[in-house]
């Protein structure tokens, strides 16, 4: 039986089957394609989602983004956690 996924630093997020990250060349934007859904990703969301490869943990992703963007780790953790929990609740992220 399914259960709600709770995102923690130890979670290893990835896109499940039937959910695809794609570049929409006609509109020059990145989108997630999912059952009866299409989500346009802004620059921040894209940086997070493209790191969700089913191998890196949330802690790894946050470390990577902290290094790349020279921002406080706790701020990035909060943003990443909120986005991934929202995607998980929409059933377009597995972890």
């Amino acid at each position: 039986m399914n259960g709600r996924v709770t995102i923690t630093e130890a979670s290893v997020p990835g896109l499940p089957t039937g959910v695809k990250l794609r570049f929409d060349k006609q509109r020059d934007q990145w989108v997630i394609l999912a059952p009866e859904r299409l989500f346009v990703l802004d620059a921040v969301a894209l940086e997070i989602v493209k790191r969700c490869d089913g191998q890196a943990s949330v802690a790894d992703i946050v470390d990577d983004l902290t290094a790349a963007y020279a921002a406080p780790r706790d701020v990035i953790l909060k943003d990443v956690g909120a986005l991934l929990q929202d995607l998980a609740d929409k059933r377009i992220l597995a972890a």
Partner: protein
Amino acid sequence: MTDLGFPLAILAELTHRCPLQCPYCSNPLALEAASAELSTAEWKAVIAEAADLGALQIHFSGGEPTARRDLEELVAAAAAAGLYTNLITAGVLLSRERLAALAEAGLDHVQLSFQDSEAAGCDRIGGYKGGFEKKLDCARWTVELGLPLTLNMVVHRQNLEHLPEMLALAEELQARRVEIAHVQYYGWAYLNRAALMPTREQLEDATAVVEAARERLKGVLVIDYVVPDYYARRPKSCMGGWGRQFLNISPAGKVLPCHAAESITNLTFDRVQEKSLREIWEHSPAFNAYRGTDWMPEPCRSCERKEIDWGGCRCQAFALTGEAGTIDPACALSPLHDALQALATTESATGEGSFTYRSRKAGEAAARLPERIDS
């Protein structure tokens, strides 16, 4: 007019053939024969063109799309063009092997209809004996194959009492998503309206059940809920506006602004065999007839919601008044609004339960629809 862009998603109604006979089928009353259907090559050309124009998703629907033997080939063509592919099916013609072949061809998502939460109601409403068991098999195979599963539940007076069981069925079958869609009254559903119309109390109960379930099943089951508008105060933003975000290709190649558009009998629709999709999308008189806000009568034209509701639903305005360009009677600002609500209340209380089932023969006989409403 500003840049029209192109729809993100298109609906490909591959055939009107279907083993089920649902009395609220979204197909037109005049069902296309198999001989009128587009060929495999024609569909593949349209799919490639739609992807090239900017479509990102394609919904394969019908009738029953699995009645087309070339479905695997069409799914593969869509996947090769980069489209996200969705199958909208009744499930009763599928074997596990065929579903696996479709997954192999690149199918991304299965939307499976149930007419009720239990066999008796499901088989009676769908007019197909043994259908419920086959649907259960189809749901299990979908999940076993790793495909995301959505259950489509069309709800109305004769099955709304089972709404909690429908949600439980979706959970039990491990659907990621369920659509609870109240019947919208065009074509077949308009013909069967008195047998389907829910009471206002049923509607309010259903909405409360859905809201509670959304809270309880957060992160487990995504619930989409489509409300009926005969009891509403504001009309639905039908298709997000005529000719703005969506197009539908009929089995015979007609390009429609929505699946019910053929019910507006004074419009003519261009065909993909004759013109390019881009030309039809941008210039077809049927698409331009109610596009934007210039066509609107008052009070729509000066309404602050004109770019929210887009004037409601043209098919509904036509079905109820005979004029597609008039105010949707679902809007409280329509002079017909009170009459519409009274009609819904009366039909839900006194309508008989028997259906006119969908069939080619019944469609031909149904030239005369229920009375239009008068103010």
